């Protein structure tokens, strides 16, 4: 009996050590995922972090966001590459006025499938976006045959690894909003669904408008013009 108790005691102690080790390993994995920009919601589903907070300026590099932070220079670059059909194609932005959303996708990543499906189903462009251009890796890193099956007929698909470098794309799927009129990248980041990209852009536009209003109010106030100043309402007598 005594021997049995001693054996069981050692078994329990061993199990305790094992559980503690597993918990520690789990915590380390969660911390590592968090650093990679992946969080786990209450539904237990992983979500990549989104960094499309403000289309009016590029996000500031932060250690915790290093994986989903673009490393591009914020400049616009023409994109030249191949189509999945084997044609040559070039897309330009200089001297234009459109806002183009560049979607950097691959044929293999699971999350990218959401976007391919949405685009093929005719998902509408977010407000303030004039066109969508899908950019994949070049033919030596991507399957043209797979892309032929995935590509939506209404959007341009360019196979151009160089563009991934030009725009500093860290992960896929990744989105870069190019404002041709401003001549620069005005927003970028990762998202898991097209709806999420749209809502982030809408929120960012609203934030931008609010910020603009506050800036104007501050400038008027600095000039000694209060909100009820008569000079603001020339039609009133």
């Amino acid at each position, binding site marked *: 009996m005594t021997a049995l108790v001693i054996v069981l005691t050692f078994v329990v102690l061993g199990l305790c050590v094992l559980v503690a080790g597993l918990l520690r390993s789990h915590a380390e994995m969660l911390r590592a995922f968090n650093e990679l920009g992946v969080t786990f919601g209450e539904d237990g589903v992983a979500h990549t972090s989104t960094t499309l907070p403000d289309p009016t300026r590029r996000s500031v590099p932060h250690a915790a966001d290093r994986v989903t932070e673009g490393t591009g220079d914020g400049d616009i670059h023409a994109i*030249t590459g191949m189509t999945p059909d084997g044609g040559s194609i070039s897309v330009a932005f200089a001297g234009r006025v459109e806002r183009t959303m560049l979607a950097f996708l691959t044929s293999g990543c699971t999350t990218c499938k959401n976007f391919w499906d949405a685009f093929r189903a005719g998902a509408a462009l977010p407000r303030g976006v004039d066109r969508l251009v899908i950019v994949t890796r070049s033919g030596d890193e991507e399957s043209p045959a797979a892309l032929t099956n995935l590509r939506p007929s209404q959007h341009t698909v360019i196979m151009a690894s160089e563009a991934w470098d030009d725009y500093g794309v860290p992960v896929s799927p990744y989105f870069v909003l190019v404002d041709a009129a401003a001549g620069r990248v005005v927003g970028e980041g990762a998202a898991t669904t097209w709806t999420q990209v749209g809502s982030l852009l809408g929120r960012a536009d609203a934030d931008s408008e609010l910020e603009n209003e506050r800036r104007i109010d501050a400038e008027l106030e600095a000039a000694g013009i209060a909100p009820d100043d008569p000079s603001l309402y020339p039609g009133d007598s």
Partner: protein
Amino acid sequence: MTELRGGGVAVQLPSGWEGEIFDRTPTLGNRSLGGPAGDTEVARNVIHLANFALPNQRGDFGSGAVELMNSGAVMVILFEHGPESVDTPLFARSGIPVLTADEFHPQQMQRTLQGQSGRQIFFNHNGRAFCLYVVLGSHRQRQVLVDVVNQVLANVEIEPA
């Protein structure tokens, strides 16, 4: 400048210009115009160049794109015909054309669009036969726009057949 190359054609695109080369060099799989093999015209390369955002869905002669053109827009299309066309009278003109404003007319559009102007020329170069079709967003501004077109055409290289 950005270089666009494919189908034996190379173009140095000025800043703000974009384009696409549909490489339709004949293979067993892309005799697209139908009819018995051997006696049908074979669709060859089609080159689209424009100084505006080209929509993905458009016809060989720019339908779907020309409707989007504003007054400063220009679209240049090179449509290659098969080798059997090179020595025909239609393609007797030799060399990549240089255009003048007087050549443009709204009635030369494939489909007339208000305010726009077009020009279509057939030519041969290096043993290859092409149809050049140019659309200007504004007939009134053709003097200015035709210079832009000629700058682009001067940067087109067509390799021998």
